[in-house]
């Protein structure tokens, strides 16, 4: 890991630029940029390069995932896969029981070679009914969701201001949208971002 980071660091500090030159990208034409997007999908048809569900088991670098529509997915995580669980995490953070969304490339054998995997990611809207210690009590369609503030990870975005680690402007009874990581099989969520309209 150290040597890879050093290599990347020297690349961006040595030859890095404010913008990527066209020569580094090959053709800059829109055909090139979207060349990998594959054939157009029929509206309403399932996207073959996307999977969602909950991890049943993990075998080597393959996640066995049962989708909410009872479809089984095999998702292969490779070196280049990005995993998110309240932030970028290594592969060993994926646990059986976690929910996920994955995007990648469908292999001929039906496996999805994942480019990105988001674990337990949730996006919920509701009203703050109470604020206690480091927890927001959220009323989400009449159900209470406990949203935990995680030091160093949770940020608030107020209107269109930049993200801030200071969440003290949140008020009881205001409306918020929370992006976070669900704690499986509970009504609790760790907060990544709180969006506050005012």
């Amino acid at each position, binding site marked *: 890991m150290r040597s*890879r*980071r050093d*290599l*990347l*660091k020297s*690349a*961006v*500090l040595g*030859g*890095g*630029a*404010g*913008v*990527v030159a066209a020569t*580094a*990208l090959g053709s800059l034409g829109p055909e090139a*940029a*979207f060349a*990998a997007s594959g054939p157009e999908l029929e509206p309403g048809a399932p996207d073959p390069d996307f999977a969602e569900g909950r991890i049943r088991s993990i075998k080597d670098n393959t996640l066995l995932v049962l989708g909410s529509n009872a479809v089984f997915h095999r998702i292969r995580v*490779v*070196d*280049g*896969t*990005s995993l*998110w669980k309240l*932030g*970028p995490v290594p592969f060993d953070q994926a646990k059986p029981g976690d929910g996920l969304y994955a995007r990648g490339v469908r292999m001929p054998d039906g496996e999805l070679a994942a*480019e*990105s995997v*988001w674990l337990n990611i949730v996006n919920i809207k509701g009203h703050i*009914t*109470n*604020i*206690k*210690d*480091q927890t927001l009590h959220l*009323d989400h*369609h*009449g159900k209470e969701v406990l949203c935990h*503030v995680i*030091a*160093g*990870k*949770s*940020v608030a*975005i107020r209107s269109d201001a*930049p*993200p*801030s*680690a*200071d*969440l*003290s402007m*949140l*008020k*009881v*009874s205001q409306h918020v949208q929370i992006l976070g990581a669900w704690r499986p099989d509970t009504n609790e969520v760790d907060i*990544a*971002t709180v969006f506050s309209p005012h």
Partner: protein
Amino acid sequence: MHGIAASQPYVIALFLVWAGLMKLLSRRMRARAGHTALARLVGPARAVPAFRLVALAELAVAAALLLPPLLPLEAAAAAALCAGFLAYLAYSHVAAPASSCGCLGAHSRPVDLRAFARAAFLLVASLLALPADPGPPLVPLALAETAVLLALSAELDRHWLVPFRRLLVRLRRPLTAAPAGDVPLAASLHLLHRSPAYCSASAQLTTDVQDTWDEDGLRFVVYGARERTAVFAVPLAGDDPSAVRVSLVREPTQV
């Protein structure tokens, strides 16, 4: 026991009058009638007339309770009404768990434990009112019961519970714990996303953030970009997007 039975009719009548008047007069209540569990029970078109019927029954029982003489029959009618409320709450909890009950005014909260507790409390009060009691009503008892019933009413939360919790938050300041010294990743990504460097490379990116680390006042953020790796150097201090640098690296080990 003197006075206990005599106190109950006033408490029950107060809530019945409140419930009846809200159902009859509140425009918001009429507008929301279609979203209540009663609309599920009788059909959305008949929800408003059904609410009016219930309101008339509530006002009639309340009037009977308030006007002397107090007969056991009146307390029995109140008890029957409260038992009906409980049955209706049970129905809405099962059949329309997302709907509000529409009991004492319009709000969007579904039936919860407090609604059941309030209806059960009123039922017990009606049963307590059954025995003939010549004693004068106990004012403190009636006031205490009213306070409990008001506290159980979700319709009133915004008048006392929300301000009370806001006051507690202002006094205790729960979220003002000094934030950790390091810059949250989301703040760096916000700067990154507005930078010319990210805009020039974003069409190439195929993954979310793969790796990130801090070194020498810079935060390095790594994305996959097809067969290459995109690495960005984002300054930890300052908010100038043009200071972000980018490089696309072809790594021999990458698949």
